[in-house]
């Protein structure tokens, strides 16, 4: 093994020169000769019967090639969009979701017709000419009301709006804890709906070649192999003849994991029409129709002793499923399994209720279930501390799972692989100057300053597999990861991974691992992903902070297999026993005689030549699949300091400290970048973002980026970041994921800080987003 030179180093992102100079290749950068353009006609109503669709005028419009409605796709696409079968045993009602509505539109933006034209503008004009006769039905928008038995129905034929109702652990599990409680605190905690707003919207270019029954799709997705699997299945095509190409992807945040209706309709149109066709999602479509994040509320009770010992928790999640159960929607219930956070509990009861509404479906959004769990447990711990007059730091220290406890089996049987929560907390407090801040707070309150300090000592589970857990939940797909390492005769290397990147910097990180393992310069390693026509047979994409701790390990193992073969060959060339051959700094030499050596490149060349050892085949390449034995468990401590303007309700973040532990670090710059982006999205949820629907009409009122407030660099403070390193025992690289960490941590830190700031007014809890208007109203109420 070569001495590590690149792993751990601040290597600059290799992909950035291409991306920041506008030389990336996003979906809209691809085209085909003879391409036609698709525009979708979407229901303006959140719920309506489709009485008639008049297409005559649109069909005659300039440049319009074809207009299709649901009936045209009946023979083209089989069945319904997939949904995780994880709740099969208890599911109450998972509505069928054909990619285009025929008789009933159940959310604003649901596709009812497809217009194809020679140009994008003609397609847009044509779509405006399709005349749909709707009979509007009552829109079910409010989740709490939707869950009532007497509610209007989201689907006219449904018995109720309950998609699922599942207890993970009944009340008996926490009964003893609540019986012995000296303090019980209760709160309802809202997680508002968010739209993911990736910089690059979605898009599909599809080219079906009838003679060969071959389909090529260019699209913006986080997991091309999944799309291939689903689309080939729905279209009745051989999986090997469907190629999904997803080159550069401009952000996903989870919203590009699941297949969407358009992902089926666009290739189906190509087959119907015998032409390549393209659709690029507009920003308006994205804000309205991208699978939304969060959209939940929690009723939580916590039992504790007056000395701060946490005893028990009871939590019910109400999840706004939207009009259909999105493919990975059920994953968000992981919040119920993670509700205990970084602490020890006697008993936790939890239950999830999935509620249908006439809104676009929800699906995983950065963190998916884990930010919600962190937010609720970190809020509740603060509420207990407030109730008993304990410092938020002290109550955390008292209840943390301790380093000696790992591996720690938590209340739901998940095994937390490693951690040292107090170490990161101590570092964060040191960087924040916690004791000094508390003194400042006391002093400031005398002068009417509403300064607050918020903590978030978050933990996370990520890195999916393992296959034993994921395959049953997904209907047989393991979520392991594949890698292929191919060495050219002159020693340069192509690496294929089944993960994909939409901002993560895999071309850099993964190349660092390969270059170190093979002892070659990083420049000679080419990392390829996002094309099912190349590399490994299967890939599982990038989601849930899994790429490094699963895909990276597969790459490391495939590289190791290559080195093993090269070592055998080097021993043969050096006329030494294999065990006497040392591989160091990219060279093989016989133990004790470093001057007699062969470089990795020389051995690679020899591997394609003559005179190989008996029984050795030519070539130097290897495939590895890694099925992790457990999930990995990152953690950290964030400290947020805010000042609230009591006159206007405006919040200023004065300081933000993030100390995170993702095990061994391959590239510190990339880890920092992930924290910066993640914290920004968490602050976005805490202070700015919310999809607001009119409860009467069901119309989305925040349909543009003027009304839907994504924060910019102006609104985000400079972050103080640091890391502790507790290597994961789950994989040989000792790594954990970091892609979602910042988002998981941040909303709790910010809201805890605001709640702390408003303590003198008797305010204990504030909802998100903590907008100036909301805080002003709450302050005004408190002062009455």
């Amino acid at each position, binding site marked *: 093994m070569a001495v590590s030179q690149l792993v751990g180093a601040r290597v600059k992102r290799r992909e950035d020169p291409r991306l920041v100079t506008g030389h990336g290749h996003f979906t809209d950068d691809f085209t085909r000769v003879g391409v036609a353009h698709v525009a979708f006609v979407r229901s303006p109503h959140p719920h309506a019967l489709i009485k008639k669709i008049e297409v005559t005028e649109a069909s005659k419009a300039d440049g319009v090639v074809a207009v299709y409605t649901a009936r045209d796709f009946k023979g083209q696409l089989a069945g319904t969009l997939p949904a995780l079968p994880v709740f099969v045993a208890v599911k109450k009602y998972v509505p069928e979701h054909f990619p285009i509505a025929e008789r009933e539109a159940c959310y604003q933006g649901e596709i009812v017709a497809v217009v194809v034209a020679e140009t994008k503008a003609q397609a*847009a004009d044509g779509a405006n000419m399709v005349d749909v006769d709707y009979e509007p039905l009552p829109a079910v928008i409010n989740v709490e009301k939707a869950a009532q038995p007497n509610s209007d129905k989201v689907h006219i034929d449904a018995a109720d709006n309950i998609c699922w109702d599942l207890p993970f652990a009944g009340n008996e599990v926490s009964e003893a804890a609540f019986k012995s409680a000296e303090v019980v605190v209760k709160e309802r905690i809202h997680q508002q709906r968010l739209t993911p707003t990736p910089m690059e919207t979605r898009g599909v270019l599809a080219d079906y070649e009838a003679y060969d029954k071959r389909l090529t799709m260019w699209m913006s997705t986080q997991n091309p192999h999944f799309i291939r699997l689903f689309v080939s299945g729905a279209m009745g095509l051989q999986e090997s003849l469907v190629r999904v190409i997803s080159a550069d992807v401009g952000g996903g945040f989870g919203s590009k994991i699941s297949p969407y209706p358009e992902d089926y309709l666009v290739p189906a149109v190509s087959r119907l029409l015998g032409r390549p066709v393209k659709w690029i999602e507009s920003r308006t479509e994205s804000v309205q129709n991208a699978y939304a994040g969060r959209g939940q509320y929690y009723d939580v009770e916590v039992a504790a002793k007056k000395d701060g010992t946490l005893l028990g928790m009871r939590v019910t999640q109400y999840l706004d499923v939207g009009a259909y159960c999105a493919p990975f929607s059920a994953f968000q219930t992981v919040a119920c399994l993670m509700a205990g956070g970084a602490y020890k509990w006697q008993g936790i009861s939890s239950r999830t209720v999935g509620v249908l509404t006439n809104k676009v479906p929800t699906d995983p959004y950065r963190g998916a279930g884990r930010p919600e769990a962190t937010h609720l447990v970190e809020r509740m711990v603060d509420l207990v501390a407030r109730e008993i007059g304990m410092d938020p730091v002290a109550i955390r220290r008292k209840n943390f799972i301790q380093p000696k406890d790992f591996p720690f089996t938590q209340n739901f049987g998940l095994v937390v692989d490693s951690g040292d929560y107090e170490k990161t907390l101590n570092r964060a407090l040191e960087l924040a100057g916690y004791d000094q801040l508390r003194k400042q707070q006391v002093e400031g309150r005398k002068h009417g300053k509403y300064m607050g300090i918020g903590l978030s000592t978050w933990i996370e589970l990520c890195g999916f597999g393992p296959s034993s857990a994921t395959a049953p939940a997904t209907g047989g797909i393991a979520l392991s990861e594949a890698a292929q390492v191919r060495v050219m005769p002159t020693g340069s290397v192509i690496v294929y991974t089944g993960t994909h990147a939409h901002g993560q910097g895999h071309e850099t990180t993964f190349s660092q691992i390969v270059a170190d393992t093979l002892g070659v310069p990083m420049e000679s390693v080419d990392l390829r992903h996002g094309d099912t026509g190349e590399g490994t047979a299967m890939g599982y994409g990038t989601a849930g902070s899994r790429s490094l701790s699963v895909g990276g390990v597969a790459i490391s193992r495939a590289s190791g297999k290559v080195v093993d073969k090269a070592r055998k060959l080097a021993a043969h060339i050096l006329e030494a026993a294999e065990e006497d051959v040392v591989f160091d700094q990219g060279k093989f030499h016989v133990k004790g005689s470093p001057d007699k050596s062969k470089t990795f490149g020389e051995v690679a060349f020899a591997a394609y030549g003559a005179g190989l050892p008996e029984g050795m085949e030519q070539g130097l390449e290897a495939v590895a699949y890694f099925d992790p034995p457990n999930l990995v468990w990152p953690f950290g401590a964030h400290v947020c300091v805010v000042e609230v303007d009591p*006159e206007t309700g*405006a919040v200023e973040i004065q300081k933000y400290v993030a100390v995170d532990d993702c095990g061994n670090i391959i590239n510190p710059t990339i880890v920092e970048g992930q924290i910066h982006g993640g914290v920004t999205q968490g602050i976005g949820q805490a202070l700015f973002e919310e999809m607001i629907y009119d409860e009467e009409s069901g119309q989305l009122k925040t349909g543009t980026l003027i009304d839907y407030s994504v924060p*910019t660099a102006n609104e985000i403070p400079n972050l103080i970041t640091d890391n502790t390193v507790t290597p994961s025992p789950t994989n040989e690289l000792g790594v954990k994921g970091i892609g979602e960490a910042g988002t998981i941590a941040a909303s709790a830190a910010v809201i805890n800080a605001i709640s702390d700031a408003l303590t003198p007014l008797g305010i204990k809890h504030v909802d998100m987003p903590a907008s*100036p208007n909301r805080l002003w109203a709450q302050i005004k109420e408190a002062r009455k």
Partner: protein
Amino acid sequence: MIPAAFEYARASSVEEASKLLNKYGEDAKVLAGGHSLIPLMRLRLAQPTALVDINGIKELDHIKEDGNKLRIGALTRHVTIQSSSVVKGKLPLLAEVAGEVGDNQVRNMGTMGGVIAHADAAGDYPTLALMLDADIVTNQRTIPAHDFFKDLFTTALGPDEIVTEVVFPVANGPHKYVKFRRRLFDWAIVGVAAQKMNGGWRIGLTNVGVTPVRANAVEEALKKGAKPEEAAEHASDGLDPAGDLRASPEYKKHLARVLTKRAIQQAQGT
């Protein structure tokens, strides 16, 4: 989204622009910076039959001192106003406000005339024009600002009438614009401008009604010697703002009072 089809013509003089507007009729629109119009067109909320592009009319891009007046050409960009030493010397409040409009992209393209003619209730310049008794000069006449802003997105302009210039008084005494918003580039939730001139105060409010508002009651109270915090209590007198996603009517009225107090106090510090 793609706008609906439209005709496009580029004018090289105000006369030509006026003729083109006559030719295309009342569904034609003038294109200046385009940062309000084009988004509306992309959403198909505006579907003009023709755009008359005035960006080539060089004489509309000017900043001129004229005795005790400051003449700002309709095509003058926010960035030019923001960085103009003339504006900074003669009406520093205007330079300050220009620097608070939108973001860099908006300030590089957006124009004085465009903001005035668009008459968005959340626009910043209309507040200044109103409170300072500016004159809006068109290719046909001169309209005092208090007769110009009629309603939401509605002005006194006729179909073929083009704003050519906005004429402000010189005022370089104490001044402040407090623009309250969630994100730096957002429109004002509420904005308050304060300018000391001719021995009295002028106070203008942004986004608390369908048009900009001059806070006469605050000005009167100050004239009678009220302290800023006392006078500011009158800032919401007579206001009946509509609520929106960012602010309830009550909150807007409250902000009008708080921000008025702050604007005057901060102006006194300048």
